[in-house]
């Protein structure tokens, strides 16, 4: 009996009227965990019941504690008929199982009903007493910390980075079970919510076990997704990076780097040591998989075709990104080469040398090769036995093996910034995985060489080292131009670099960056089964190729040479495929200046055509000049010849855009104002191309004062104020015209994204100067002729003047700005960041804004005595970033992973689809905030809306929506406050934990 869960139901408020006759409610509460249920007394005739119940105690296994949520149901007592349910609250008690996270859950939580939404709030207290359990064969993994954050969490230090952990669990979807025909939508929704809660818990527990097995104590970059496969079931899968973290107890000044001599735990030999034979970018059959996996399994009916085979068809594939061959090893002497080999072999022994991290401890990331990605199209089949999820496992294994071999082809032993996703339409499913091939230092790896040898790897300077090519110059798997690094002049760098990671903080960047998107729509014929899967497989390479070309063109148009945070999303519908690639473009100082874009006509005889082309060329050149000015890109001029690097031959030019086999000799005669040597050539051979170029140029420009990126931070902007605004915006667009060409569709899709961005800028105009960070677009085709685009991002204000103040001054300044700047509409920082109802949430030294009590007596003086009666609601910040500007995260309280379904049968009455979704998203935010506040937190970092599935049936006046959100609940303190009370923080933390245990 290793754990005791205790819950107390205190009170309710704002309950709905359940008895029309009396306009009141006779409410009581059921508290359920596992199969045990307790009830409170009925509190008659009140909308604000005070139950003040006893402590309900559940004695349970810690395995159950991890899997099950605490389920609280509020009901209206009815003497004569069945009791009516008012709503439910699911409480994830996982944060209470970890000593460093929260110790109590206490506060007002919204009572949620899948049909009516939020119906009042309930005040609860939940605690867990865990008993020490020394059973080595336990099934639970209590104590393993989970973080959504894809970097080492702010108040921890990495002792060891163990590597990739993954798991998936499958089940039947309750919505598709036979029983669903006879039960109410509410019952069905609740069954689904509960199931996903359980599956998430189980998944997390299983991943935790793997982490313990590896000797770690935490999962960083935990990414959990669910696939609604319809008839064939429900898959919940997760990936993450296992680490050993240590809490930084003192202030960072004393932080030292951990030594590698960690206690040698007997660690399970990862993988089977077997390596896929190097099939660099091979086409044809999928990479052979481990026999064990297949042998025990019934013949899979699934149809599979690897899209990777596209590689050979095209000279340059997006998959391998823009890496280019590196000969760093040669110059650095044999010792270093040996070292690298050691690290490499150590990593190669791992089954998947993957890391979900996008930012790294200093010195960890050595070189970056480029983006690696793989997709495969599968036909879904009913999952016959939920306990044997091998089919899905095998699918992902195939993909991961492919990724691994791509990385190897780039001379890399690891993949960082790794993520996986799916897109499902009917029975077709596209599985995608992508990451950045990289070479890592063994510093944080258990099986790396000894610490003493590290200095040999330190010769690379941090500002440009990661740009140096990791592959062999003479054996480049694709055509690329290499030059000597523009920073250190010692190593070779590629001309362009694409990555899925965040811009390393130490990277040398010229100017500012910006969001770059490639958008593509391709029609496809309606088809069934294998035919459909084949059609999609055949389309995929072209889609990826064009997305890549668009990205490249847009990057050049902005005068930049590298992409970070690249996410390519491909969404499948019945009659079309959507591709959206988002990344943040920057100018890396280490890389050569990008050449311009040069366009050329196919039939140069026509004079007017020539004219047209030169006009267009002029426009392009003007745009590049303008962009360089806008993004402050003015790299120092370098004299190429000094280095003596081989200047690339003109024939090596990468000709990407609809290039034909015939050579274009006339190109060299054109005057290129940009790019002395390697202009990017666009050949216009048909109207499509003209349209494409036109679209390229008509990309809407960002209004003054705004910047945007999809990474954590924007290069060139440091002095953030504390004003932040996280938001979610969703648009659904109906294509009424069935006969659209690809071009027409492209335009519509592109306009949809552009207009959405325009609206965002307008909405947030009061925050200028401001940057929209972590702009995360997700596209979907909810049904035929519908395109859905959802964006979650955070707008952050910054101070215009580039002051070189130290942290203290800027901290104070931001606070002052936030308070005085009345024009900012919504970003005033409140000091009421802590809830007065929660003893945990008030670390010492934080100013609390208490509601002023009502004046006593009856003073006639009529002075202002507006009081916000009762306890004012604590402010909870939300951000998709891993940090809060001007603040320090002092504690991580646990992961927030919530799944909600909302359904309505009175769509019109709820304000139509927009009204319905607006309310639902607001409710989801409210529930996230309330749960964070109940844990004692005042912010959610690394927040993301991973799923927003919206379905409507306006004719029936119905709609349904599923939303899955996640993030890390934290306590932060303003830096300015930290300094004021710099003596106290340590005592504050101990105090908070003490008082938590004491209650």
């Amino acid at each position, binding site marked *: 009996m290793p754990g005791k869960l205790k819950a107390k139901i205190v009170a309710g408020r704002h309950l709905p009227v359940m008895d029309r006759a009396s306009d009141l409610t006779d409410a009581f509460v059921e508290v359920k965990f596992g199969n045990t249920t307790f009830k409170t007394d009925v509190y008659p005739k009140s909308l604000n019941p005070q139950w003040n119940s006893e402590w309900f105690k559940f004695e349970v296994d810690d395995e159950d504690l991890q899997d099950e949520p605490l389920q609280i149901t509020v009901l209206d007592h009815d003497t004569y008929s069945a009791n009516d349910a008012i709503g439910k609250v699911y409480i994830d008690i996982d944060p209470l199982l970890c000593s460093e996270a929260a110790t109590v859950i206490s506060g007002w939580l919204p009572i949620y009903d899948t049909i009516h939404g939020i119906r009042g709030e309930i005040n609860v207290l939940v605690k867990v007493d865990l008993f020490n359990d020394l059973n080595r064969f336990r099934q639970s993994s209590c104590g393993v910390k989970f973080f959504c954050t894809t970097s080492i969490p702010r108040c921890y230090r990495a002792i060891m980075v163990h590597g990739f952990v993954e798991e998936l669990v499958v089940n039947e979807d309750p919505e598709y079970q036979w029983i669903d025909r006879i039960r109410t939508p509410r019952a069905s929704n609740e069954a689904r919510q509960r199931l996903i809660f359980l599956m998430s818990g189980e998944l997390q527990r299983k991943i935790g076990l793997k982490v313990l097995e590896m000797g770690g104590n935490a999962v960083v970059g935990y990414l959990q997704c669910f696939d609604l496969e319809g008839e064939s079931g429900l898959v919940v899968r997760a990936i993450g990076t296992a680490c050993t973290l240590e809490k930084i107890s003192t202030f960072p000044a004393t932080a030292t780097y951990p030594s590698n001599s960690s206690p040698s735990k007997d660690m399970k030999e990862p993988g089977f040591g077997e390596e896929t034979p190097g099939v660099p970018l091979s086409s044809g059959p999928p990479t052979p998989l481990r026999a064990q996996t297949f042998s025990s399994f019934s013949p899979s009916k699934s149809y599979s075709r690897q899209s990777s085979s596209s590689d050979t068809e095209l000279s340059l594939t997006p998959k391998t990104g823009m890496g280019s061959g590196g000969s760093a090893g040669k110059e650095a002497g044999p010792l270093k080469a040996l070292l690298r080999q050691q690290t490499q072999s150590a990593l190669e022994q791992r089954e998947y040398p993957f890391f979900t991290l996008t930012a790294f401890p200093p010195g960890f990331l050595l070189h970056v090769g480029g983006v690696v990605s793989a997709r495969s199209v599968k036909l879904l089949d009913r999952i016959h036995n939920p306990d044997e999820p091998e089919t899905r496992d095998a699918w992902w294994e195939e993909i991961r093996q492919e990724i691994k071999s791509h990385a190897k082809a780039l001379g890399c032993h690891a993949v960082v910034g790794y993520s996986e996703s799916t897109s499902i339409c009917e029975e077709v499913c596209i599985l995608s995985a992508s990451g950045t091939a990289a070479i890592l230092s063994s510093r944080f790896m258990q099986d790396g060489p000894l610490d003493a040898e590290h200095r040999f790897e330190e010769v690379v300077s941090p500002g440009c080292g990661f740009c140096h090519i990791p592959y062999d110059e003479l054996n480049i798997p694709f055509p690329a131009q290499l030059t000597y690094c523009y920073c250190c002049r010692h190593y070779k760098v590629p001309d362009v670099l694409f990555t899925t990671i965040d811009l390393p903080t130490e990277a040398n960047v010229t100017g500012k960056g910006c969001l770059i998107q490639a958008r593509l729509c391709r029609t496809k014929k309606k088809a069934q089964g294998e035919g459909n899967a084949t059609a999609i497989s055949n389309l995929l390479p072209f889609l990826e190729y064009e997305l890549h070309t668009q990205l490249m063109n847009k990057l050049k148009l902005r005068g930049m040479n590298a992409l970070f945070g690249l996410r390519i999303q491909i969404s499948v519908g019945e009659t079309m495929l959507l591709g959206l690639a988002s990344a943040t473009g920057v100018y890396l100082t280490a890389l050569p200046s990008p050449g311009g874009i040069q366009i050329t006509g196919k039939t140069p005889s026509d004079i007017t055509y020539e004219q047209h082309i030169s006009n267009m060329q002029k426009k392009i050149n003007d745009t590049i000049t303008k962009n360089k000015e806008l993004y402050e890109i003015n790299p120092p001029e370098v004299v190429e010849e000094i280095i003596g690097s081989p200047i690339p031959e003109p024939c090596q030019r990468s000709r990407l855009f609809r290039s034909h086999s015939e050579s274009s000799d006339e190109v060299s005669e054109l005057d290129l104002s940009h790019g002395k040597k390697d202009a990017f050539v666009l050949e216009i051979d048909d109207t499509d191309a003209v349209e494409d170029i036109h679209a390229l140029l008509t990309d809407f420009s960002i209004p003054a004062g705004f910047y945007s990126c999809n990474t954590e931070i924007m290069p060139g902007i440091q002095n953030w104020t504390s004003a932040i605004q996280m938001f979610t915006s969703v648009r659904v667009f109906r294509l009424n015209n069935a006969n659209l060409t690809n071009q027409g569709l492209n335009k519509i899709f592109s306009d949809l994204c552009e207009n959405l961005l325009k609206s965002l800028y307008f*909405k947030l105009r009061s925050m200028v100067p401001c940057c929209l960070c972590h702009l995360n677009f997700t596209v979907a085709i909810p049904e035929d002729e519908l395109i859905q685009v959802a964006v979650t991002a955070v707008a952050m204000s910054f101070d215009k003047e580039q002051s070189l103040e130290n942290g203290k001054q800027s901290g104070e300044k931001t606070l002052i700005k936030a308070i005085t700047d009345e024009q900012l509409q919504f970003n005033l920082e409140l000091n009421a960041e802590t809830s007065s109802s929660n003893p945990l949430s008030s670390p010492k030294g934080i100013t609390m804004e208490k509601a002023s009590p009502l004046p006593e007596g009856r003073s006639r003086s009529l002075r202002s005595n507006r009081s*916000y009666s009762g306890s004012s609601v604590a402010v909870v910040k939300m951000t998709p970033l891993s940090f809060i500007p001007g603040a320090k995260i002092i504690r991580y309280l646990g992961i927030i992973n919530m799944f909600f379904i909302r359904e309505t049968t009175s769509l019109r009455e709820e304000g139509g689809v927009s009204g319905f979704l607006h309310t639902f998203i607001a409710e989801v935010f409210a529930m996230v905030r309330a749960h964070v506040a109940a844990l004692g937190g005042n912010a959610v970092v690394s927040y993301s809306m991973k799923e927003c599935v919206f379905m409507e049936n306006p004719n029936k006046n119905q709609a349904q929506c599923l939303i899955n959100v996640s993030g890390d609940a934290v306590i932060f303190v303003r830096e300015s406050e930290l300094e004021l009370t710099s003596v106290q923080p340590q005592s504050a933390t101990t105090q908070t934990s003490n008082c938590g245990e004491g209650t």
Partner: protein
Amino acid sequence: MSTELDVFVGNTTVLDEDVYQLWLDGHTVSNAVRIRMEAGALQECEANAEVLHSDTMDQFRTFQMCERLLQSPSKVANQLLFQIPPHRQTMLIERYYEFDSVFAREVLGKKLSKGTKKDLDDISSKTGIALKCCRRQHVFKVVEELKGPLVENIQRHFLLSDVLARDYAAIVFFANSRFETGKRKLQYLSFQDFAFCAGQLISYWTVGAVNNVMEDLDVDLEKEFLHDLKDLKVLVNDKDMLDQHKSLVCAQLRGKIKVFSEMEASFKNLSRALVNIASKLTHTKDFRDLFIDLVEKFIEPRRSDKWTIGDLRLFLKHYSSSVHTLEAFRHQVIWDRYMGVIKSCILKMYHD
């Protein structure tokens, strides 16, 4: 091709005050978009009509969702659905309950809680103000059922500012006391004039003004006080006292006011007018006519004699303070309580 769905939700609710006002004024979305365009919204942030329409729709939807909360403002502060900073909450509530003074002037003195809907419709068509005001009706309804201090009640239940709460209190007070305000002679008085007077009456003449017992709605005037006012008659009925009072006032004002001779000549009338009003207040009919009496019997004659407001102020000051030196007069407390209010009401009402 059309946008089927378009929403924007911020963790902190995004509220545009200008758009809020347009919503409060009862504009349709397309109307509001037109007004915003005319106000130059397109110049901001490279917006276009589509962006503006989307933003306006979204804002209107947000306000509509907030309205449920605004109807019981005390919930705004501890609801969880919208994260709105306190000063913005105040703005939302304050604006929501703000009313047009032209409208309020019409409403004054009408019975509010019963059958007012039709009255409001009439007033609405008369004043040309959209009937957004229905939402305020329940303020009156709720307040009339409450006990205790009126202004504080309104503040507590609706979290309104002092000024706005006092305006509401004035309306409730006037409705409760059924003061005559509609007569032609009173038309020159604005709602703010009446609101001021109501504030004075509530502060000094009601039950709640003197004792702290929250027994009843404190908008009723104190009966005992009104009864005691009859005793003031002695000031004009007792010849000696009247003369003494007159000489005291004249001694103070000689050479200080332009209308001294007129004042000296008509002192008896002046005093009689003010005292008579006091002595008749016990009768419901006369009480309702308080303002018409003040205007007809005191304010209009002074205006026709071309008294300046300064002269009037000086006169009232000394007229009321000189009584303290009348040794035979034993109702000083009542006198001060009466004159304090009357003096400030007259001064407020003394304009064109």
